[in-house]
């Protein structure tokens, strides 16, 4: 039996559960010669803010054991240039495109979303995107032109900007209010990206659900710091940064386990996924879909192997649907 890999996020159908994480794939064009994006379920773009942002001073990156620390600072061209220069290429994508929205204030998030809604009118057609791993890319159903924006991922948890970002991502009342305000302005799927840098991530996820989010993605990077002994300075110009890569995978899996038991909306798992085995841990923990992030830097083709590996595993297990994977998790031994 060939497994059904598709799933729904709100009203949107994704062809399969593998996406590319925000901030690791630009706006889709940088990797076009290297990755068959059309075979994947979704692309989550680099964050977009209202005004252009230069980002943080270098050094912005340092390698850590089985991971990396970054402090990019949401460098992006701003909404106007995004619409003019990036959106046309995103309209050509066959996979679902979630535009990652960031801001320094509630008003900024709302304005970025409103500008995107205006620039990419909602056709109402839910694109059936991507393709199964074996058949190659499936043509999009119907002749409806794509808007380039199939949904939004709300970046409430960037650890590297002083205002907004992490500050928003840690207060449940603010998250609920902002999510509701965004909900009032769009019928497209809203995914709220959660930070693990909180005491109780489940509480934050419940706030996003209460505000009307269609899904949560979990987790963003963990705050970390590396000090260069030679210079006795922090390795990054901003002192601290966001830790990603295989080092954080157990944290991400635990967060998905907690969050998926606290909310009814789908959980999209990310953090240190570069092989199908990694993704399957997230799916067993309760995630419905996954994102590959830092793994793409190391091996641009790894998201495709993750997808193929999930399909092969499901087939070997005789599983019909990707959402059944979560139900296979056994109790810890001895319990």
């Amino acid at each position, binding site marked *: 039996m060939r497994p059904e890999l598709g799933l729904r996020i709100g009203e949107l159908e994704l062809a399969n559960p593998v996406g590319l994480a925000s*901030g*690791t*794939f*630009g706006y889709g064009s*940088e*990797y076009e*010669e*290297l990755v068959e994006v059309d075979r994947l379920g979704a692309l989550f773009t*680099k964050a977009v803010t209202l005004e252009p942002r*230069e*980002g*943080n*001073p*270098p*050094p*912005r*990156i*340092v*390698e850590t*054991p*089985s*991971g*990396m620390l*970054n402090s*990019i600072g949401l*460098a992006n061209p701003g909404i106007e240039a995004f619409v003019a220069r990036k959106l046309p290429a995103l309209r050509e994508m066959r996979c679902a495109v979630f535009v990652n929205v960031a801001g320094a204030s509630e008003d900024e998030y709302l304005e970025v979303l409103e500008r995107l809604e205006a620039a990419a009118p909602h056709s109402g057609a839910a694109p059936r995107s991507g393709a199964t791993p074996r058949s190659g890319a499936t043509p999009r159903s119907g002749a409806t032109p794509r808007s380039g924006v199939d949904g939004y991922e709300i970046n409430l948890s960037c650890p590297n900007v002083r205002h907004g970002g992490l500050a928003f991502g840690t207060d449940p009342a603010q998250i609920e209010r902002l999510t509701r305000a965004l909900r009032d302005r769009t019928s497209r799927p809203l995914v709220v990206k959660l930070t693990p840098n909180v005491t109780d991530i489940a509480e934050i996820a419940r706030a996003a659900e209460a505000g009307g989010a269609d899904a949560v993605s979990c987790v963003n990077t963990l705050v970390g710091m590396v000090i260069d002994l030679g210079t006795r300075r922090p390795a990054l110009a901003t002192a601290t940064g966001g830790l990603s*890569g*295989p*080092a954080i995978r157990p944290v991400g899996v635990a967060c998905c386990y907690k969050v998926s038991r606290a909310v009814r909306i789908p959980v999209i798992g990310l953090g240190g996924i*570069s092989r199908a085995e990694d993704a399957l841990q997230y799916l067993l923990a309760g995630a419905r879909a996954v994102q590959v992030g*830092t793994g*793409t*830097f*190391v*091996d*641009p*083709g790894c998201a495709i192997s993750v997808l193929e590996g999930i399909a092969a595993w499901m087939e070997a297990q005789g599983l019909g649907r990707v959402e059944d994977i979560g139900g296979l998790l056994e109790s810890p031994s001895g319990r």
Partner: protein
Amino acid sequence: MKQFEAEVLENRVIAEPWRELRLSWDASAGLPRPGQFFTLRVSSFSDPLLRRPFAFSAFDGARSRVAAIYQIRGGATRLLSEMASGSAIDVLGPLGRPFPEPREGERPVLAGGGIGLGPLLYLAQSLFAAGRAPLLVLGVRSASRMPSIALPEGSVVCTDDGSSGFEGTPVDWIAHNLPPGRARLYGCGPLPMLAALAALAAERGWAASLSAEQWMACGVGACMGCALPRADGSGYVRACADGPVFEAAEIDWRRR
């Protein structure tokens, strides 16, 4: 640009702790140009995690082979140095913006600091092939660090301690010996050397194309990690996709 599996053909010591690596090259990835680079994944495990960038030091189109010279600095380059001939390695390239050709009437002068020699060797190879014989000026710490690698005819060697050749840096040599007139400096080496070269070029009215180095994660322009400050203060460029070669006046070489 392509990701492919190459074969390690040679990995030899040219001066401790420097190595010269030769790899097979998949011609369908495209022809590398001087100043461009490729990245290697040196381990299939997660530590070291990130790919490492290497500038092309030679390209043999007939046999489809490339070379790079590198210095053992940490765990990743140590692992790379232990790879024997015949090993398979994950390659991604060619990447980045190459050195521009010298304009009509510009004398090409190549200034290399230490391991920065690599991309200049390939540039010299291609300039000779184009009939634009360059002058290469190489600086190393001392005679004991002189790499056992063929330098182009007429090259000048400088040592910090005067144990061989000119005592001083390539920038000192150029400042004292390069006659006025049209020239294009090509530089690759430590940041202070590039800053000095940029200042000298501005003072003498020479064009200068410099290859920058910065930590990078993706190598293709997606991660925005390898930022370098623009000279005019208007933000940053990416060393990987906007460079690694920049005109000297584009970058603030004194800040990092």
